[in-house]
């Protein structure tokens, strides 16, 4: 039989081991690639008895359709966050691309309106807007060494206003309608119950995953995000990598804009105005670090899934807008805290 002192020593040892074991489990859980996916499934199962309709085919189809355009722009944001930057101008890119594209393809006075080239030219115009603004952001951040926060914040202000101003040249109302059915069908239509927007977004996601996981450029992105000085010493073209990250973000925002514009059948200069928190929040919830050097496209997919699932459930509950914003803000804040804890834990472990 153990003495009192020996018992206390054994108890303390047991508690230390248990704590160590728990810390390890917590550590592994925080670093798990599939944490957000499991959270999404758990949340869905919890909400199912509360809102049975969320399990209906219509609701699940809505969740998928709502995910896709958000995922497109979030993928682009992932690239920028990996290089430790941030792109706050994505919503303005979406708005600008929306009205420029609509002004090209609208049957109500569009530059190519009524022709067979209307939709493709309109889409190309949208991509051109996204690429131009993305390149501008990247140039300012990489070559002029301006903080990406300021560059893209001012870009957001400027291009949001420019989108409204541009619209006034094309319509007396505040949006440009008369878009070709072929364009609208991509953002809005479905075939055999599968949204048409799934295919371009799937292509985008696969291409982004390939770039990050399988190319030298992808490795360069992570290197620049972790330590740009060390990356430069190692021969990584840091400025070019940063510029390309912002270019990709701009292009992804343009693709997202095309899908939203098709969905609403309207080029609107306020497209995405209230969406910035959702875009960045989805990427952060997925696990991409705000500090750079860490992120994956599949994580962003999980993050978008969770955010859209949360949003849909709150909509179906009929909660007030204030409640919805407060809840979503809290979730994103928690994700940011987890991100910080991850960085701290990995720093401690290494």
């Amino acid at each position, binding site marked *: 039989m153990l003495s009192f002192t020996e018992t206390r020593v054994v108890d303390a040892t047991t508690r230390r081991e248990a704590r160590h074991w728990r810390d390890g489990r917590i550590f592994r859980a925080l670093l798990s690639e599939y944490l957000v996916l499991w959270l999404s499934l758990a949340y869905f199962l919890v909400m199912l*008895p509360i809102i049975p309709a969320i399990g209906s085919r219509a609701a699940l189809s809505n969740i998928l*359709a709502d995910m896709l355009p958000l995922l497109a722009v979030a993928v682009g944001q992932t690239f920028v966050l990996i290089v430790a930057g941030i792109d706050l101008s994505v919503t303005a890119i979406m708005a600008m691309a929306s009205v420029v594209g609509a002004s090209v393809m609208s049957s109500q006075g569009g530059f190519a309106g009524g022709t067979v080239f209307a939709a493709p030219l309109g889409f190309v115009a949208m991509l051109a807007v996204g690429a131009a603004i993305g390149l501008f952001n990247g140039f300012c951040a990489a070559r002029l060494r301006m903080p990406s926060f300021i560059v893209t914040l001012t870009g957001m202000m400027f291009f949001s206003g420019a989108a409204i101003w541009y619209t006034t040249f094309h319509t007396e*109302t*505040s949006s440009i309608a008369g878009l070709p059915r072929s364009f609208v069908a991509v953002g809005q239509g479905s075939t055999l119950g599968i949204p048409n927007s799934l295919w371009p977004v799937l292509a985008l996601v696969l291409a982004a995953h390939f770039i990050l996981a399988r190319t030298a450029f992808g490795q360069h992105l992570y290197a620049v995000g972790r330590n740009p000085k060390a990356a430069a010493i190692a021969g990584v073209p840091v400025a070019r990598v940063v510029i390309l990250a912002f270019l990709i973000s701009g292009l992804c925002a343009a693709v997202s804009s095309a899908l939203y514009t098709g*969905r609403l059948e*309207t080029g*609107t200069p*306020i497209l995405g105005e209230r969406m910035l928190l959702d875009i960045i929040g989805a990427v952060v919830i997925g696990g991409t670090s705000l500090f750079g050097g860490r992120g994956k496209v599949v994580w962003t997919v999980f993050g978008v899934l969770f955010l859209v699932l949360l949003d849909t459930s709150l*909509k179906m509950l009929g909660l007030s*807008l204030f409640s919805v914003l407060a809840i979503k803000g809290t979730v994103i804040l928690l994700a940011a805290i987890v991100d910080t804890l991850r960085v701290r834990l990995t720093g401690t472990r290494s």
Partner: protein
Amino acid sequence: MIISRRTFTIGAMLAAGTAGWPAFVKAQGAKTIAVLFDGLYSPFWVAGLDAIKRDLESRGFEMVQAISDQDDNRQFEQVKSMLARNVDGIIIVQTDSNAVIPAIRAANEAGVPMVHFNRPPAESDAKSVTVLADNRRITRETVQYMVDVARERGGTYKAAILIGDLGDPNAVNRRDGFFDIVDQHQDIIEVVARIPTEWNADRAFSGLTNAFQANPDINFLFTSSDFMFPQIVQVMQVAGKLHPIDSPDHVIFGGFDGDATAYKLMEDKLLDADGVQDLFYEAELAVNAIVDLQAGKEVEPVLLDPGFAITQANLEERREDMWGYHIHKAS
């Protein structure tokens, strides 16, 4: 049998979830109407939502509401969510008349009736019913009174108009109603400022401030919505332009909506005339339309609220018909 803490916790959570299930299942039989507004940024919308809610509840409907915060895409997603929830009808206030069309089509496909409250959609093949005020006619009546006052006072006038969001047909019609009358009296009235507000009070404030700085002798002012009155009054006070109607420096002043602030300004003899929408009548029309559409009856695509202009001349006799007067009385 020894039960570990983890096992007990999991078991308790499952039990709680199962026991709680019946508490969360909605009562069958009650019909649900989704009321989707784009914002509650003026007393008109707050009172409108309240009027619709009371009317629906008095008829035994359940109401579920959502606000889109002027985000067209968000509202489209809200419509889809409500359709997935199998609501029995939708009353909607959209931000953009074009961007709402896909939402109408979605409701048509689902066989759910949709009624637009106070704002019509753009023309399309999608089917819905709109309840709205005859904005152009009411504005004409209001501005005509203002012009009659101007004629009576004599002299010439520099006019300013605060215009709403031109994606909203109401704003377009009120602007057109203003110019329908003013353009006929160009001998005494010159419009020197067309202030775009996008239905934003801050823009109204800055736009009107700039207008008074550029044209200090503006003496004829019309606002397309009463919700901008607090900002307008503030600007006029700072510019030294807020004088009662019996003052020689009075700026002939008119508005549109008929809210409580408008009534107070009229009572204080600062406002000459205000176009009034019969909010309670419009709410009743909207709910009637939903009920009739659900019953399979044909409903006119546009249900018009004729409204009227309340002026200093008819204030006493018409104020009971002004929804803002009732809110003013209750406060």
